[in-house]
Every structure is written in C-alpha cells, then in structure tokens.
C-alpha cells in the first residue's frame, strides 16, 4: 500500500522552479530518503506535503488524503521534525509535548502515558521537567522526534534530522529512527544531504535542481555504477590517463588530481592493471561505489560540499541562537 502518492508536484517562485514536476510513491512502513544538495527542493517538497505551502500545480495524497483539499486530515496523519529547531525553549520538555498533544486532540487520559512512552524512547524521561533552553542540540532534536511521534502519525517527516549535530549524536539519532522502524509500522520520509545516512533508507530518491533523477534502493543505485572504483595517482598523470584510455577503452574521470575508473571486478582488475601499465603509479585505491559516486554520475557534479558546509555552519549558529 502506498501511504504517500505524489503526482506532478510543482512549486514555482518568481524566477525559480524549486520543485519541478515530481512524482513518486512511498510504501507503508518504509524509510524513504530524499537525497540531494541544499537548494535541490527537498524542504520545499516536505513543506508542500505537510500543507505548509501550496503547490503551484500537481497534488499529493497522504494516507489517502489530498494535500490541497483535505489539509486537516493530512495534518492529523503526519508528524514533522523540521530542519530548523521548532521547540518552545521557555517550556519544559513535558510542556512542549503536552502542548502538542492537546493541539492534536489526544484525550487527557492518554496524554500522560504517551508523553512518558515517547520521552523514554528518546531517553529524555529523566529530563522531562527541565526547561528546553538547557538542552544540547542533540537533546532538542530527540525531543522533536518524540514530539512528532506523540500523536502516532502514519508518516513521520524528518527534514535533515541530523543537520548540525556531531557524529556521535548523529549516530544516536539514527539508532532511534531505526528502532522506530523496527518497533512500529511507521513510514518515515526523510531528507538528507549526507550520503552515508542515505544508506539507512529502504529506498532513495535522488533529487537535483527540483527534479528526481533516480529512485531505487541504495544497493540498486550503486549497481548503476557497474562495479568498483579505482583511484590512481601519478606524477605523470596525463600520460597515465592516455595509456589507460588506450588500453581499456573506459571513461576516465579526474577529480582533485586523482584519476578514477569504474570496473566490474576490482580485485581481479588490479593485478592486470599492474602488468599492463608502463607509467609509474604513485598510489592506488580500490573501493566499492558509494551513493556519492551515484550522485556524481547522475548529475555530473558532487553534492556541493563547500556550499553545504557553509550553510551547516549558519544553521548551527541558528541552533545556538535558539536559546533566546
């Protein structure tokens, strides 16, 4: 069963098409990832699915409800963890959750047990009566995830759930997300621009410039690359490149001064390579393809690293400022 069905969703701003004719389905119970650089249209898509902004054209159904005409039913069906912090940091953890529970019409009798359950899930039960301002970034994120779960939504949207967090905290957040998937039948829709995190997803849509360029399981996407990747460094790069091209008739990519070739079976290819080449090779690396390679292959560019990190920095500052 498809819990999300997106049909030709488009969002245009004055001179920018943020999301361009996007269609896809998400199945009940899967972790579905939206992978792409900042500005690719990930958050805009989530905002439309969450009824926060209207699409310019196209529509989507969540839990069978139309995002344009049945907004209230859509809102009841989803939980959201936004990219930027959205807690009231003058309230305690429990007050934040109760506020949310009341807005989502959870009966008083069920409120306390549910608050307790979600706080225990994210290991914040001990801190239930602390003011949120005193929480670390990771704790706030966990609390937001707990809040998104309290009304037991059909779909949990996570917009860059680990952005701006340190590696340890990121790892923990993922533990909670995977625990959720194991213990409940919840569908999780997430966006990320961290390639390694996209690996956790059951299926990934790769999005660039507002369009989906591929949609499949991480394993299948990596198969597109057609095997392993060998990186070669040499003092005489040009000569090596020419020789490789001539000998194997393969496309040679150059990145940061390192030559890359894709081969079907890297372990067998390496000895052969050593025999064939006459140019001196300084270093060599053999690895299996990553989603980064898939992205590069599909879009012709890397997930814009510099841009991402700069924006991360801003976000991190915004998070810190969150203690207003």
């Amino acid at each position, binding site marked *: 069963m498809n819990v999300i069905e997106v049909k030709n969703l488009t969002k245009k701003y004055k001179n920018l098409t943020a999301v361009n004719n996007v269609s896809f389905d998400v199945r009940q119970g899967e972790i579905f990832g939206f992978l792409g650089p900042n500005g690719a249209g990930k958050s805009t898509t989530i905002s439309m699915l*969450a*009824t*926060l*902004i*209207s699409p310019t054209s196209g529509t989507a159904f969540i839990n069978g409800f139309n995002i344009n005409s049945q907004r*209230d*039913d859509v*809102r*009841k069906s*989803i939980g*959201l963890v*936004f990219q*930027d*912090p*959205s*807690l*009231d*940091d*003058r*309230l305690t953890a429990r*007050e934040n959750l109760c*506020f*949310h529970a*009341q*807005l*989502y*019409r959870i009966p008083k009798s069920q409120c306390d047990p549910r608050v307790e359950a979600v706080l225990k899930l994210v290991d914040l039960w001990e801190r239930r009566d602390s*003011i949120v301002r005193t929480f670390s970034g990771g704790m706030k994120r966990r609390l937001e995830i707990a*809040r998104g779960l309290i009304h037991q939504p059909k779909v949990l949207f996570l917009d860059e759930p680990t952005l701006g967090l340190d590696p340890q905290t990121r790892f923990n957040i993922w533990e909670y997300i995977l625990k959720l998937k194991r213990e409940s039948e919840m569908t999780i829709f997430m966006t990320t621009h961290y390639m390694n995190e996209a690996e956790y997803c059951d299926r990934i849509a790769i999005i660039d410039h507002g369009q989906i360029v591929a949609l499949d399981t991480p394993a299948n996407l990596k198969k597109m690359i057609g095997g392993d990747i060998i990186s070669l460094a040499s003092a005489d790069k040009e000569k090596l490149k020419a020789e490789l091209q001539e000998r194997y008739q393969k496309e040679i990519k150059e990145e940061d001064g390192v030559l890359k070739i894709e081969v079907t079976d890297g372990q067998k290819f390496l000895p052969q390579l050593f025999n064939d080449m006459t140019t001196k090779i300084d270093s060599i690396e053999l690895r299996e393809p990553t989603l980064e390679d898939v992205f590069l292959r599909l879009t012709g560019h890397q997930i814009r690293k510099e841009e991402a990190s700069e924006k991360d920095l801003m976000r991190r500052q915004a998070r810190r400022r*969150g203690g*207003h």
Partner: protein
Amino acid sequence: MYFFQAIYTIWRREIIRYIRDRARIFSTFLQPLMFLAIFGLGLRSTLAQGNFGIDFIKFMYPGIIAMSVMGIAFFSTVSTVWDREFGFLKEILVAPVPRVAIVIGKISGAMTIASTQALILLVLAPFIGVSIHILTIVELFLFFLVLSFAISSLGLLIASLMKTTESFGVVMQVLIFPMFFLSGAFFPLTSIPGWLSVISRINPLTYGVDAARQILLGPQTPAAVLQKLSLYPIHIDILALAIFSLIVVSAAVWAFNRRD
C-alpha cells in the same frame, strides 16, 4: 468543543511564557508605578487647574490606562513574530487546528496580560487622588477586556504580517504615537480639524478612551460637563470596538492562512 480547547492551549502557553519571564512581570508592575509617580506627583501640581470643569488628572486617567493597555497588548503580540523567527510557528501551523483558534488564542494571551495591567492601574487609582467606586472598577475592568482584545487583534494582525522582530518594532513605534495622541487621551477630540478627526475615528483607542472616561467620570461628574467631553454613548463605543475587532481578526486569520 475542540475549538475552545485549542484556544485554551494556545492561550495557556502565552501565559506560561509570560509568567516565566521575570523582566516582563517586573515591568508590568513597574510601569503603572512610574505612571503614578509622573502623573500623580509631577503633572498634577502644574496641570491640575484645567478648564474642563473637572480635575485634569481625572480627565487623563482613563487615557493613561488605555495607553498602558495599548503598549502591553502590542508588545505581547510580538510573541507571534518570535515564534516565526524561532521556528515554533511552524509547529503550530502544521497542527490540525483551525487558524481562527490560533489567532484567538494568541489574542486572548495578549488581552489577558494587558487587562491585568489595567486592573493594577485601576486598583492604584486612589493613590493619585482618583477615587473610583468598587463597582466602577468592575465595569471598567470589563470594558478594558474589550479594549485589550481590540488592540491585541491589531497587534496580532501586524505581527502575522511581519517576518522579523525588528520590523515589528519599527511598525509599532510608528503606530503607537499617533494612536495615542489622536485618541483623546490628552485633549478632547471635540474641537480638532476635520481630517484629524477622521483619523481619530478609525483609531480603536479613541473609542476606548471615550468609553472609559464616561464610565469613570459618570458617577461623579455633571452630565452636561461629561457630554461636552464625550464623542459617543458607551454602547456605541463598544460596538465600534467589536466591529473593529471583527475586521482585524478576520484579516489576521487571512494572514495566517496565506501559504506562499
């Protein structure tokens, strides 16, 4: 029923935030005391001999309360701009809650805080020589609830259109002074030029000051004197405030519903 529960939830958060903010509580109590000191000790000695036929302090006092209500009501609605800036507004907007309930909940929060301030000022009135009967205090308090609601609605409408606290502050600065000086708080509006008079009639504070003055002075002033100082009967003032609130609340709901 759910509608009122949602209003209550939104309102309760505003109040919790207010109670946790010591600086705001402190200023709620300090501001009236400051007014009392300035008007009671300072102005009184120089202005007490007005030519209205009544004590100038008594003439001014409703205006002072109205001004203070306006300031607090406006300031309290800044919470919506903060919510937007700090992301919490999204949490509210994505909830299955009617936008009207959000708007009224927010307005009620500001109204509660502003009318608390009015109550403090009313209770302190005897200290600067304005004697008010206990029943009149009750009447005035009820009326200030209406006025606080109207002013808070306007504040919320502006807040819902503003993206940053800075722009909200600037707009408020620009609004507060003409609203106050063209409200009849300082001088009667019965003898101002036509165009100013038009502006003063769209100013909700005008009706607030007008009605509050009549309620306060009614029991202790000759009807003829009061008549000269007043614009409309009290029920017309209340009606005007109700219509004003209705229009502004509708506009605020529209602003909340906008999804660009």
